[in-house]
């Protein structure tokens, strides 16, 4: 049975597991995290490429599509054989793509690590697939879009990103614009170019969490990845100019839905240098968490909305701090919006309660400890920070910053970021005339 190595909640650093690091001279880094999961190890390949890198017209969604192609085999291990190797291990294996990263993960017996290093290094260096395989997978990606297309939250986010950004690729969702997804089958040659550009050691960090022998592991990685050459590709990602006026957009949804409302502000990029980003994380809990005044007022007492939450995700470039809610009664939409805007003004004016601030810091620390209880969940958390900074100490630095956030910081950040000219609001409501149940 696996469990954390008596993760002390009293220690100064939130991440209590020993970390090993090795660089291989070609830009590739290996990070090991020793976690008490006897006989089990998680192997993550963290690629710092996501939809943020899709700067060319007509190529939205490509980073995600390419993730699918990474499972289509090499000369040494064609698609079927690659699957067969993982099957024989009894491994759990998959991948995901987000705005800033693509992460490939395998969870399997530690005994399988030599084979995993072999097949993973092989596909990252020698991927090879036919045009036909490529075209069929494009159909699967369209299917992936279709499976979520009925979800009004997807419609809301699409509109929000599009309205809030003018030039930065955050303007589109990771899955991409539908017209670009439909055109994917024609982009075989571009996919080869994409591989050449981004599947290079300087974009990748390998992460192993669990039960492993560091000397053996690093020698193994060195043997299999040392001939991998840097690509030297640098993408010029457009900087989003500062917003100068509030923006409003709306979506008429063609199916029955409760109204959705997003009020978003441009927020700071991920950083452990300044307090802004961690400060806004604390703020989101203090002022929009379950025990916050607005949650208690709108969800519990007035029952105008069925949930409300807020926050910004950690991103390489400035993300949105989004306040999101779903309104129970369509006619209350304006009241809800006003209540949120009043609250935003209030928190820029008043200091948060010190006791609430302390409770929040405790909440965030224990939330982290409760979330990191298996080799896989620890790896998932570490992969998140490696994708942002390529530095395994980041996780501890961020949590140290959380501890230092003061009531004055919280108020100052609200003043700094929650300005009307920095705001984008989107409502999604049921289109007039849509049938449905009352």
């Amino acid at each position, binding site marked *: 049975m696996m469990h954390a190595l008596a993760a002390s909640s009293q220690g100064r650093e939130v991440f209590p597991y020993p970390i090993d690091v090795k660089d291989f001279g070609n830009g590739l880094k290996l990070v090991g995290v020793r976690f008490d999961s006897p006989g089990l190890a998680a192997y993550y390949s963290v690629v710092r490429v996501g939809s943020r890198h899709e700067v060319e017209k007509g190529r939205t969604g490509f980073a995600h599509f390419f993730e699918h192609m990474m499972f289509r085999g090499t000369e040494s291990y064609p698609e079927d054989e690659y699957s067969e190797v993982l099957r*024989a291990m009894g491994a759990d294996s*998959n991948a995901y793509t987000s705005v800033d990263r693509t992460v490939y993960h395998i969870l399997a017996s530690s005994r399988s690590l030599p084979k995993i290093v072999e097949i993973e290094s092989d596909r990252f260096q020698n991927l090879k697939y036919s045009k036909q395989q490529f075209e069929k997978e494009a159909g699967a990606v369209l299917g992936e879009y*279709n*499976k979520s297309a009925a979800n009004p939250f997807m419609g809301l986010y699409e509109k929000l990103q599009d309205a809030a950004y003018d030039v930065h690729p955050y303007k589109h969702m990771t899955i991409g614009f539908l017209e670009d997804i439909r055109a994917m089958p024609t982009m075989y040659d571009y996919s080869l170019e994409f591989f050449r550009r981004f599947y290079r050691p300087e974009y990748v960090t390998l992460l192993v969490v669990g039960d492993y022998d560091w000397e053996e592991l690093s020698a193994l990685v060195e043997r299999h990845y040392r001939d991998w050459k840097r690509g030297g590709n640098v993408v010029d990602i457009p900087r989003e100019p500062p917003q100068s006026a509030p923006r409003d957009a709306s979506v008429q949804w063609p199916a029955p*839905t409760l109204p959705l409302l997003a009020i978003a502000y441009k927020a700071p990029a991920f950083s452990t240098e300044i307090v802004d980003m961690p400060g806004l994380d604390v703020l989101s809990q203090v002022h929009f968490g379950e025990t916050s005044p607005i949650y208690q007022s709108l969800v519990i007492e007035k029952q105008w909305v*069925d949930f409300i939450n807020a926050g910004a995700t950690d991103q390489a470039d400035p993300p949105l701090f989004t306040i999101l809610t779903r309104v129970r009664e369509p006619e209350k939409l304006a009241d809800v919006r006003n209540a949120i805007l009043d609250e935003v003004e209030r928190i820029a004016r008043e200091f948060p309660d010190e006791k609430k601030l302390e409770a929040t810091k405790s909440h965030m620390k224990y939330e982290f400890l409760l979330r990191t209880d298996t080799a896989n969940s620890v790896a998932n958390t570490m992969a998140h920070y490696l994708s942002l900074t390529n530095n395994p100490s980041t996780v501890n630095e961020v949590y140290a910053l959380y501890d230092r956030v003061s009531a004055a910081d919280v108020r100052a950040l609200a003043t700094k970021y929650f300005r009307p000219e920095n705001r984008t609001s989107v409502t999604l409501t049921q289109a007039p005339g849509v049938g449905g149940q009352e």
Partner: protein
Amino acid sequence: MILFAALALGADRDPVILQSPGNPLVSFRFVLHIGSALDPPGKEGLAALTALMLSQGGTNELSLTEVMEALYPMAADFWSQPDKEVTTFVGRAHRDHLEPYYAVFRGRLQKPRFDPQDFERNKNDLLNYLTKSLPSADDEDLGKKSLEWELYAGHPYRHPVQGTVGGVESITLDDVKTFYRDNYTIENLQIGIAGDLPEAFADRVVEDFRKSLPSRNASAPTLPTPPTGKGLEVTVVEKSTAEATAISLGFPLEITRSDEDFYPLLVANTYLGDHRTFNGVLMNELRAKRGLNYGDYSYIEAFHQDGGSTFALPNVPRRQQSFSIWIRPVAPENAHFALRGAIFYLRRLVDQGMTAEEFEAMREYLTSYSKLWVQSLDRRLGYQIDSSFYGTNFYIDEIEKRLAAMTVDDVNRAVKKHLDRWDFRVAMVASNAEELASAVGENRKSKVTYQTSGASEEVLAEDREIEILALPIDSVKVVPVAESFRK
């Protein structure tokens, strides 16, 4: 290290206590043998709403707001997971907070507040799910629930766990109080706790609940046998905004984890449709080779995915199970083909069986892969409790033991015995409902449309067989989505 302990309480409801020295987290899984199958006719949703009043409501001592305030610094969880046969209350906290957490946990289960304001909110949440989310926001969920509706006509498994629109509308707070009083008994409770527990903690909890919950001997109602059919009974749920067509099909099974045949069928099902991996025939044939959709899987028991993982949620045990195939949304022009394709590959398994080599590969895979299902102590606790529901040894050990003694003939015989059927109920969510219904009803040729031209000769040859596969259609009907789950 894990130490198992069982404290006698009665029959298959003995507490499951997993002692895990050094583990910083404590998990509670309190399984009440109360599910939506117990909903009174006309009050469908009562079990789920009662569970919400406990997990999203206050206690005698604390209002919901005060409960939230108490749990906030601990970041501790408490939620209910209602299903057809059981409702599980799951709690997770750090060991640092065991006692203050337990004080809130016990209050919520033993002394729920039943506040009218909480009732209004929870009831509205269920109604909004049934009238807005389910018919509108997730066609796959709609397809699966429509399939259960058709599989279990005249059976208490029929309606969604969340109820029906008419059922939930008619529930009063008094109904909830009465349902709680009658069913939240010590006999219906199975206690599960796991973690680095202080000495005597588990005994204290068991004693506490034994004193606090009423005792009332009630056995679970007997379940009728689900109806069998003569051929395919197809329901097309008409939804004008469906861009793609979600498909679920299946038939009731006579076996569960309690039965010997379940294990060879588990191997066969992994081969046919392992959930979200490329091991399954359906996934390879329909998605990888043809690009029809995002995924195609099959199941021999109720399966709810645990978050973003590929594993099943524990504590969804049922006395009756069904076989099902889940075809994720396909382009409308390929819906009929995809339905035939799924049945084609199932029939190939039934008719030809697995080869010895395929069997060995799946046995090797499942023996290792199943161990990943219980990575965390919390999931292990859930699986241990389910094992007592089915009266087996620890399920993961049972899989290893059964698979070690199994032969390919066992698998092929079990497939013949349990999957050689044509009485599928089929649910399809589609915008072109009438057209699809008549095409399926008339067994019209369903030519596949590929987005791009390339496909291997082998695939094209099979396509020609699939396109004209004659399905024994018993009935076809079109149901407007607005009429689904009304009552």
